């Protein structure tokens, strides 16, 4: 590790890895610091992603693809279901990844491109100079080192601290944290190419429960519920355990993880003097699906592209870095977060009876483009009375 880099990346998830890889490819000196002792573990993710989304960043490789998805199923509180497919996309709509291998691959690529990488190295404070971020104090097994950088990229995930230490309020409102738990189960009956989502207040209040296949007889079975619905005796793990006991009583457990997924709006501003915030740390998670891998990689790459120009032009001030914030907000990703946030805010108010009715009237859907927006559009088309409930969204679906 050197004393100075053009770019210092805090966090070795997909956002940080793509940021480091991009920086190295652009010829910048860059170091990626991961606080955990190993890249990729523990995974806190259901591991689903769209096929096109991932191909934008890395060539799909069977080494880190656990399952190829051909469709999805949404199960209503009363058990009726809606099957989604997409003939137009060749019925190849997504993957379930093996994040342990995937995250490492991205960091290998960053290293191969020329980035320094250190693990078990935690940022403990920013180096501040008249309010401008100038680097970070890094701690490695009790040894402290001050590393200066023209730009620090905070890619430190849902439990991010770095931006907060720089004076930015990153608090996720209690009602907008998905309190989550997941088992990797094996020996359970499933369709290995279909993801299933269960909705309903008694299943997963203001959230959903998922079964994401990881092979012929294994799956990530997890749940996210709103933090405001969580409490003693009715936590994410309680809901999940009771679902598994009734649906998959013979399944065996390979792994258990917990986590938090933010479904709030992104941070109001994702840059400061010498600082850029990407991925989960910037709260750029899809508010409906909770998916964040693509958004992290997308913002990670864009942050560095803007940082490179700002560094070349002299001072990486807030103004010079601002194009990053404006550009991702105006991108299809940024717009879809805003749209899906508004859709989410309405859908969490729908009663179980309403959800049953919507899902019963449709049954089966072939989507041209496999997205939440298209799904809701189709649901309205087939169920025009739904527009009454979705009145606040009329401008979106006009």
């Amino acid at each position, binding site marked *: 590790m050197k004393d100075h880099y053009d770019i210092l990346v805090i966090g070795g998830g997909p956002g940080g890895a793509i940021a480091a890889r991009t920086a190295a490819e652009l010829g910048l000196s860059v170091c990626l610091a991961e*606080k*955990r*002792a190993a890249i990729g573990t*523990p995974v*806190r993710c259901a591991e689903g992603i769209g096929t096109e989304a991932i191909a934008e960043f890395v060539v799909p490789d069977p080494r880190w693809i656990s399952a190829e998805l051909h469709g999805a199923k949404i199960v209503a509180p009363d058990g009726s279901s809606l099957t989604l497919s997409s003939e137009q996309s060749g019925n190849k709509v997504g993957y379930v990844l093996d994040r342990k291998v995937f995250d490492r691959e991205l960091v290998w690529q960053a290293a191969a491109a020329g980035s320094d990488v250190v693990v*078990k190295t*935690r940022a403990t404070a920013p180096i501040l100079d008249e309010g401008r971020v100038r680097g970070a104090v890094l701690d490695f097994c009790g040894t402290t080192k001050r590393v200066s950088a023209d730009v620090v990229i905070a890619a430190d*995930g*849902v*439990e*991010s*601290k770095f931006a*907060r230490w720089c004076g930015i309020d*990153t*608090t*996720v*409102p*209690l009602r907008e*944290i998905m*309190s*989550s*738990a997941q088992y990797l189960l094996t020996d359970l009956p499933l369709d290995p190419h279909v993801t299933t989502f269960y909705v309903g207040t008694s299943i997963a209040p203001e959230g959903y429960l998922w079964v994401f296949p990881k092979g012929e007889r294994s799956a990530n079975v997890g749940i996210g519920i709103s*933090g*405001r619905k*969580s*409490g*003693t005796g009715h*936590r*994410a*793990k309680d809901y999940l355990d009771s679902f598994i006991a009734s649906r998959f009583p013979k399944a065996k457990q390979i792994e*258990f*993880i*917990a*986590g*938090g997924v*933010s479904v709030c709006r992104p941070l109001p501003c994702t840059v400061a003097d010498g600082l850029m915030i990407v991925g989960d740390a910037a709260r750029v998670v899809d508010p409906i699906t909770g998916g964040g891998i693509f958004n992290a990689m997308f913002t990670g790459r864009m942050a560095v592209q803007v940082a490179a120009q700002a560094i070349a032009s002299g001072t990486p001030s807030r103004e010079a870095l601002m194009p990053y914030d404006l550009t991702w907000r105006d991108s299809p990703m940024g717009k879809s977060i805003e749209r899906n946030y508004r859709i989410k805010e309405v859908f969490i108010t729908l009663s179980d009876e309403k959800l049953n009715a919507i899902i019963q009237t449709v049954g089966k859907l072939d989507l041209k483009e496999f997205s939440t927006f298209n799904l809701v559009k189709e649901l309205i088309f087939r169920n025009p009375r739904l527009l009454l409930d979705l009145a606040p969204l009329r401008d979106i679906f006009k």
Partner: protein
Amino acid sequence: MLSVRRDICAYCGCCVSVCPQGALELIDAYLDVGSSCTSCGICAKACPLGALEVKDEGPL
């Protein structure tokens, strides 16, 4: 005061994100509770496993 049941905590960081004081920090397999904690209990509610508890400090 806030007490962490280390036998239950899965070190997931869910609590860190909702703490309005920024008092919590996830340091690998260790959840650090800083001095700015006000025992508001938001983290205890959000915890997916029930590893956090606000305990009454009792009479001084």
